[in-house]
């Protein structure tokens, strides 16, 4: 058919425009209520799986499930609701053998990729390139240290410190008593402080 233009069937002028352009209400509501938590969901999935590709798959899967379950959502904190779905998707991924054959990534390449990713992160209060660089290094170190925390301490710490869920929400999400959440969190923070010890002092210095 070569040069011929793509063939479109003739349409009445109104045949297309007359269709209601708006989405069903529940899709619009979903965008308003759940979609704003996409970054958070990705952050959670990413620290759970420690695998950028898997994290994307998990979050896509979670949003598909969330969208389908959304008509049954009974209100309450949408973030905690979404996180419960993300967590289930993560557990399915683990059950499906995900993570067992985790690809080892070249460290050099990783930090370069991270640096590149970080370069895209808007940093409103950065002043000089030097300071931006220090912050980037700091962030990279912290990411690596969090990833090195064993479970279930990593999950608890991420939910509390990065996602700011309450003890009660974390307890419900991870299906343990609040006392367990508290002891996990204390232990996670202790481990983080220990791992950051040498850098910790420097970090504090750099901030002054």
């Amino acid at each position, binding site marked *: *058919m070569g040069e011929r233009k793509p063939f479109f069937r003739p*349409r009445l002028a109104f045949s297309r425009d007359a269709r209601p352009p708006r989405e069903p209400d529940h899709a619009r509501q979903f965008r308003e209520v759940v*979609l704003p938590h996409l*970054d958070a969901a990705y952050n959670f999935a990413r620290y759970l799986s420690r695998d950028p590709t898997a994290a*994307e798959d998990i979050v896509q899967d979670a949003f598909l499930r969330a969208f389908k379950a959304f008509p049954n959502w009974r209100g309450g904190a949408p973030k905690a609701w979404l996180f419960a779905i993300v967590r289930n998707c993560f557990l399915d991924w683990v059950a499906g053998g995900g993570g067992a054959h985790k690809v080892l990534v070249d460290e050099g390449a990783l930090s370069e990729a991270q640096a590149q990713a970080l370069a895209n992160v808007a940093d409103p209060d950065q002043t000089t390139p030097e300071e931006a660089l220090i912050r980037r290094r700091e962030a990279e170190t912290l990411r690596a240290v969090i990833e090195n925390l064993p479970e279930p301490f990593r999950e608890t710490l991420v939910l509390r410190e990065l996602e700011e869920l309450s003890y009660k929400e974390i307890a419900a999400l991870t299906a343990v008593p609040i006392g367990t959440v508290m002891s996990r969190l*204390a232990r996670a923070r202790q481990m983080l402080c220990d791992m950051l010890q040498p850098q*910790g002092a420097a970090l504090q210095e750099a901030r002054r």
Partner: protein
Amino acid sequence: MSACPDKAMLIHGLLDGELDAINAAACEAHLTTCEGCNAEYQRLIALREALATPGVAHRAPERLRAGVEALIGAEAGSEPARPIRRAAPWAASGVAGLLAAGLAVMLVLPQVADNGLEQQLVASHVRSLLANHLTDVATSDQHVIRPWLNGKVDVAPPVPELAPEGFPLVGGRLDYIDGHVAPAIVYRRRAHTVNLFVWPAERRLFDGGRMVRREGYTVLEWTAGGLRYAAVSDIDPGDLRQFKAAFEAHSPDPSH
């Protein structure tokens, strides 16, 4: 100088704002008198500040955001169709209305039906990109895919390897399109996926095929040898045409 072991949980609770007023006041009072506990509290605050550094929390990549957006669009679109009720106001406005309604039935309804089909195709394509959804049989060997399809569906489409043309064969999957269990043959174009759905053709489309853009995806449909094909991908429409040409060039032509 170390923190009092029995106060550890209280200090975390204070930091997290999880203590009730009485315990919070008691804990704060303790911090003013106990150097060890105060040092621990300051250390936890420093840790919290460090964790708030931009770039510690991950942000969703743009590709993921686009994928989720497309997913919502596709899923929302595949819900029960609403356009039907639009016919009512026209029908209510007299002869002209009747005429318009008549035209609409003739011209709009087939369109609506096909829109639903393309919506289905895009939704299936998007779903296939989700975790572990792409292929039921992952192989680049066409001699594996054909027999695999054989017992499962009533169509036997050609499954040419198109790697030399820049579209390597990735595998096959069963899907459900337009009321048929339909095989999807999966190809790749660089980092992109092309899903080729095949089901029995009920009518012939023009030889040039029909191309529709939807939610950022391109659907290219054509018929050949009694089969209906629909290729869905986010690659450039020109590339998709190239895919069709390559597919046809490598398929035995049943019409001769």
